[in-house]
């Protein structure tokens, strides 16, 4: 199976304080491989380094050591991002634009011809159920609608790899269900989905494989069913065991 996303001994340090003397290791030495067509869950408690890893993959943060590749191309080269779609945790879009204008803007960035862009925009607005609101400014949208615009922009270039950072964060159960359905549909179309999430039930439902990191180190990786079998519990219990959570005994 060919590898679509890969990190090799990825290390990220942040320096802060006067004279930059304080160093925080956000990622120790991360080795990850995601295969084509997989739905891959990237799990870890808050501050584990999930977002830092995604930031490196997207070229926002340069690695201190090691390397990361998308489609075999070093992520430091912008062309590595030509075939990916990214959905951030919260909605970050130009609120003075309408959904249609926003999608047209991103389509132009990918160099889509006008007719193809028009077709794609129509398809995506239908997929995320925003056809009625396409001419309204994004600032007038509810949080769920904004997240769906986010999903539409992530799909504008018909990407082969989707990177989703907590895609269902803050959504109501209906919104979560819709996002889950879309992920499932993309999987059926043969797309690769790499996503971080705290919703372990959701991960168990949609993911083929998962990686669990804690304090910048990879703790476990494998098929969800294997991890569950290995720990003789559900994914939540397995996750807590792997990150070393010790329940405090009731006094």
């Amino acid at each position, binding site marked *: 199976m060919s590898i679509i996303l890969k990190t090799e001994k990825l290390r990220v340090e*942040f320096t802060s304080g006067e004279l930059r003397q304080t160093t925080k290791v956000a990622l120790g030495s991360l080795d990850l491989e995601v295969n084509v067509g997989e739905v891959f869950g990237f799990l870890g408690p808050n501050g584990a380094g999930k*977002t*830092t890893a*995604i*930031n490196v993959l*997207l*070229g*926002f*943060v*340069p690695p201190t050591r090691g390397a990361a590749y998308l489609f075999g191309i070093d992520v430091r080269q*912008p*062309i590595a*991002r*030509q075939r*990916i779609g*990214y*959905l*951030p*945790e*919260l909605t*970050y*879009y*130009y*609120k*003075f*634009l309408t959904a249609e*204008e926003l999608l047209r*803007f*991103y389509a*132009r*960035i*990918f*160099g889509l011809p006008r007719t193809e862009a028009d077709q794609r925009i129509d398809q995506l607005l239908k997929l995320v159920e925003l056809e009625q609101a396409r001419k309204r400014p994004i600032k007038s949208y509810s949080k769920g609608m904004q997240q769906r615009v*986010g999903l539409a*922009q*992530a799909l504008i*270039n018909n990407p082969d790899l989707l*990177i989703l*950072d907590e895609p269902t964060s803050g959504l109501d159960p209906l919104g979560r269900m819709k996002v889950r359905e879309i992920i499932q549909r993309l999987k059926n179309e043969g797309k690769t989905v790499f996503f971080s999430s705290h919703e372990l039930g959701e991960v168990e439902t949609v993911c083929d494989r998962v990686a669990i990191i804690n304090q910048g180190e990879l703790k476990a990786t494998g098929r969800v069913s294997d991890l569950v079998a290995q720990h003789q519990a559900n994914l939540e219990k397995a996750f807590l065991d792997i990150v070393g959570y010790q329940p405090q005994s009731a006094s």
Partner: protein
Amino acid sequence: MNTIGALAGVVIKEMYRRKDFYVLFVLTALITIAAGMVNFFHDPKIVRYVKDICMLLIWISALLIAIVTTARQIPAERESRTIFPLLAKPVTRGQFILGKFFGCWLATGMALLVFYVFFAIITGSREQHWPWLTYLQAIWLQWAMLAVVIALSLCGSIISAAPSSTTTICFIAVAGILLVGGHLNTVALHQSQPLQTIFYTIYFLIPHLEWFDIRDRMIYDWGLVNWLDCVLATLYAAAYTGLFLLLTWLGFRRKSLNT
């Protein structure tokens, strides 16, 4: 070019959907019309005062639009986090900076055009005289000067994350250059060392924005500027604009952006 054009388009849309430009235009129009209706000292050449006031307001308004629009671009992208989905696409940081620059420059140019059309209508209706080529030279030189100001503001917005401080610093710097920049060499002559060297160094380093100001030629009908001088001024502005954009890119290209 497609990416730069798309980025510039968003900046232009943002400008015409915000109220800054309209407020400044209405203010300029009201003050100019009010000034035009008053008869100062029963002077038959009253239109000169109107021209003077209107041009001063156009210069101040254009500088405000250019600096305020530019200074907020990158900090606002980072604060509202719109920069993340954008840079997650195949957009280089160089393209991002160029897109912002061209967007701000074109938006300011459009605003400038509206102001000059208003100026031409007001003064032309009073004088029955339309020196189109002088207007063209004035608008072109002012726009070229604004390219330097916009590039400088963009550079400032990389150093300081707060748009308000970038705006203030840039406005003071630009006003300082326009008001005293051209006299620094004269001041240097009367100084002892090392102040003389410092003043001369500043004089030769700063972009001389005052060279682009041909308001007096328009007000007193002194005729056209030599076209060769216009070309040289354009090249001079392009050189400083390029320098500031290069500094902006150097400061921004390796900057970590944490979501």
